[in-house]
């Protein structure tokens, strides 16, 4: 069985889906292989907050039958998937890696999860994350950090660190993450896998526990670009339950996987290669531009202004929305409630003080401050204006380019414990990813090398709104030229 297990685990999601449809692999076999791998790796990696092994096995048999009956025809039918723990799953603990939701079992599933289930994907469990998606390392989880499968002395990135690590450690075949300021792309980059944050509004946010509602977007993390597109094909759909959801035609996206990038124009912002960028990351990313140029794309350097303003703008808007979004966690209706209290006010105060971790509290306070009377205009309103200017700067760039190419993060995965001591430094690490959320754009992270420590480096491609297909086209072409990317060997530095 052990050889078979590794054979299964080495497959991509689409390869496994194909093998299942050809009855070369059974759904139960795939689930069992995944559970065995989790058994082996979880102690080191800690990707999961909650495992749903029993249900996964039960569902495996049910799905197997439906595949046999030709009721399920999705290429992902029978493929094990992990879900970030900020997406509601009916009847399955959903904690946002927070003590305050430590006992929360939703009565409904998020639309994205529902769509995957309908396609026949098998949910293995819920993945660890930064508490309420606030953090860039997955260390702010109330249930302990997730570790990078490439080197467990390092973080996997965040906030979708559990999802990224689970994919990289073969603890699932693909995963859903959410990206508010880089939370899919950055951990994908740190863990040597592919992650896509699609255009805002293309995937329903219903059932995604909100951090920054105007920035949050669900997307896939998987072993390669094709897998990500297969996942997007299932989860992109207009949803009446989400007012910000749009009707987006995925035909172009599906047709983007042919390697043809001739004549496509790529802009490389000089501003993305300045101070603070690790030279090893810089050269790996520039190498990608050269490869695409050799395939017929036109690469040009240009100035993308306002990059410096992105971080304060992002942290103002995201924190403001978060401060309001997280008000509902009050000990009244669900979740954690403090044991002893005198009166309502103290119940609120103690519940929230004990239920939220320090990073969440920091952002609630920051958000409450920028929205408070007398400061609203100076901070929140100004941030909204800068956001509009950033969008305008991208609009100008996309009038000339099909995509913008740059790094995902300034460095490869930092060591565990290095980031939380200096939150400002951690915030600065988001510089290349957050403006994409501010402007609602699609972005993709693709592995493009490893540094001298053996940690993966990712390249980011950013596209115009609803032009997700263009960055996917470029990413796929690059991936084909790059060839097989190594898998983590594990170990501690």
């Amino acid at each position: 069985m052990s050889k078979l297990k590794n054979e299964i685990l080495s497959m991509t999601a689409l390869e496994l889906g194909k093998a299942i449809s050809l009855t070369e692999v059974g759904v139960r076999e795939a689930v069992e292989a995944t559970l065995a791998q989790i058994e082996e790796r979880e102690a080191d990696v800690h990707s999961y907050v909650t495992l749903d092994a029993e249900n996964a096995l039960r569902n495996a048999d049910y799905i197997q039958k439906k595949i046999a009956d030709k009721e399920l025809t999705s290429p992902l039918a029978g493929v094990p998937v992990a879900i970030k723990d900020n997406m509601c799953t009916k009847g399955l603990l959903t904690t946002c890696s927070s003590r305050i939701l430590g006992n929360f079992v939703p009565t409904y599933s998020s639309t994205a999860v529902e769509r995957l289930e309908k396609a026949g994907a098998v949910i293995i469990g819920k993945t660890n994350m930064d508490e309420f998606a606030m953090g860039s390392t997955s260390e702010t989880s109330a249930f302990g950090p997730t570790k990078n499968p490439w080197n467990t002395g390092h973080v996997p990135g965040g906030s979708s660190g559990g999802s990224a690590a689970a994919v990289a450690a073969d603890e699932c075949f693909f995963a859903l993450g959410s990206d508010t300021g880089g939370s899919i792309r950055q951990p994908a980059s740190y863990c040597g896998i592919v992650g896509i944050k699609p255009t805002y509004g293309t995937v329903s946010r219903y059932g995604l526990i909100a951090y920054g509602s105007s920035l949050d977007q669900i997307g896939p993390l998987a072993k390669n670009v094709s897998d990500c597109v297969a996942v997007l094909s299932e989860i992109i759909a207009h949803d009446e339950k989400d007012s910000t959801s749009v009707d987006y035609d995925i035909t172009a996206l599906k047709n983007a996987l042919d390697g043809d990038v001739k004549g496509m124009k790529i802009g490389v912002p000089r501003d993305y290669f300045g101070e603070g960028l690790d030279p090893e990351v810089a050269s790996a990313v520039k190498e990608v531009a050269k490869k695409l140029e050799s395939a017929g794309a036109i690469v040009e350097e240009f100035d993308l202004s306002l990059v410096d303003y992105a971080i304060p703008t992002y942290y103002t808007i995201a924190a403001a929305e978060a401060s309001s979004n997280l008000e509902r966690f009050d000990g009244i209706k669900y979740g954690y409630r403090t044991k002893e209290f005198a009166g309502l006010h103290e119940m609120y105060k103690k519940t929230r003080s004990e239920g939220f971790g320090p990073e969440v509290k920091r952002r609630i306070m920051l958000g409450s401050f920028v929205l408070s009377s007398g400061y609203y205009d100076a901070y929140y309103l100004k941030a909204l204006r800068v956001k509009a200017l950033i969008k305008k700067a991208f609009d100008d760039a996309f009038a000339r380019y099909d995509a913008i190419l740059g790094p995902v993060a300034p460095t490869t995965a930092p060591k565990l414990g290095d980031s939380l001591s200096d939150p400002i430094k951690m915030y600065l690490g988001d510089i290349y990813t957050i403006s994409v959320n501010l402007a609602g754009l699609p972005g993709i992270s693709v592995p493009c090398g490893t540094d001298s420590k053996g940690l993966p480096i990712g390249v980011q491609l950013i596209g115009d709104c609803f032009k997700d297909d263009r960055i996917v086209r470029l990413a796929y072409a690059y991936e084909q030229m790059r060839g097989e990317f190594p898998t983590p060997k594990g170990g501690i530095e």
Partner: protein
Amino acid sequence: MSKQYEMVIGLEVHVELATKTKIFCGCSTAFGGEPNTHTCPVCTGMPGSLPVLNKQVLEYAIAVGLATNCEITKNCKFDRKNYFYPDNPQNYQISQLYLPICRNGRVDIETENGIKSVRIHEIHMEEDAGKLIHDDWYDASLVDYNRSGVPLIEIVSEPDMRSAEEVIAYLETLRNTIQYLGASDCKLNEGSMRADVNLSVREVGSEKFGTRTEMKNLNSFHSIMHAIKGESERQIDLLESGESVVQETRRWDDAKECSYAMRSKEDAQDYRYFPDPDLVPISVSDELIESIRAKQPEMRLEKKKRYKEEFDIPEYDINIITNSKHLADLFEETVALGAQPKKVSNWIMGETLKLLKEKEMDPEDISFSASHLADLIKMTDSKEINSTVAKEVFEKIFFEDVDPKKYVEEKGLKTENNEDLLLEVTKRVIEANPQSVSDYKSGKEKAIGFLVGQSMRELKGKADPVAVTEILKKLMS
């Protein structure tokens, strides 16, 4: 009191809209229901749930805005009002601060000195909160989210009213207008219409506003009248004794007929309003506005004018009938079926109002059909039934909406028209009551009443008393 004071009053009126479903989810707005049965993840503030605007709410708000001469905000937005309270499941209320749906309107009210305009500052849409119930036995508070997410509009007037009478006239006009639109039933006692009174006093002739207080918990016109009187006197007493009015929110206690301070301006919360990122800005098209405008019904003032021209009924009747769209509809439908307006008006003003009062019902609770009233009137016109029987049948129509033709047929209530029978009965009555006959003949006109009564009794009330009187007179002449 040497100085002359005047009141300056502005109103914030909350109106619950008559939509079938809630403002941001598909749950029922029906009143009553077991606690927390009209709820879903959205209106209980479950994590990850998202609001989606009920378009009917927008349409009602625009309809009220048009009827109150407001400008409609074509790009409007919802904002979050953040405050912690257990009846508010998200701990923020979705409301409108920055771009309310309607602004700069006007309501014309009838006062002793003729028509007066009260300006409308704005109308905004928002969601209602749930209900807290304190259980003294267990010393616990329970919350029912059935009302959470029921759509409201808040109508904010400018401080244009100067007396309690003007306030009542304004509220009655507003209520009437909204009922005419079908946008709400506006029942103060059930809370589907709630008014907060902002009141200050100043010396007559002064241009400057005094310090105002806001009064809450006013759930009848009666308590509004009393609260205004009480609060203005309290403020004048303060000023007269050299003290100053404190800007604060006061709660009216209807039983004790006095108000007490709830919170002062210093305790005012910072609601940290900001645009709700879960709801996209609403763009109101000209087509939508025009289609709503085209559907606006005839309002009360126009209706009154038309009634005066079309129907020969007293102004008093017109005032009462048009005060309720339901009564006005009933009146017009019955007239349209061929009944004489004056007679319809008499049935409404007489028996209908009497029964409403007896049963403590509102005109909106009337459930009988105009066609049955029209038939009843036809039957009395043709003397098929007499007026006593008609009243009896009307009660049946009022409560059970019976078909009067069938009912009269089944119960055998038709007027007895058999001449021979009438003659026979009246002759018998005359023979049996010689004293009354001689009284009548000696000039005591009243004595015939007794003979008519006796004859009607023998005929089991089913005769036309006028016809019976005629026969008796003829027989005795």
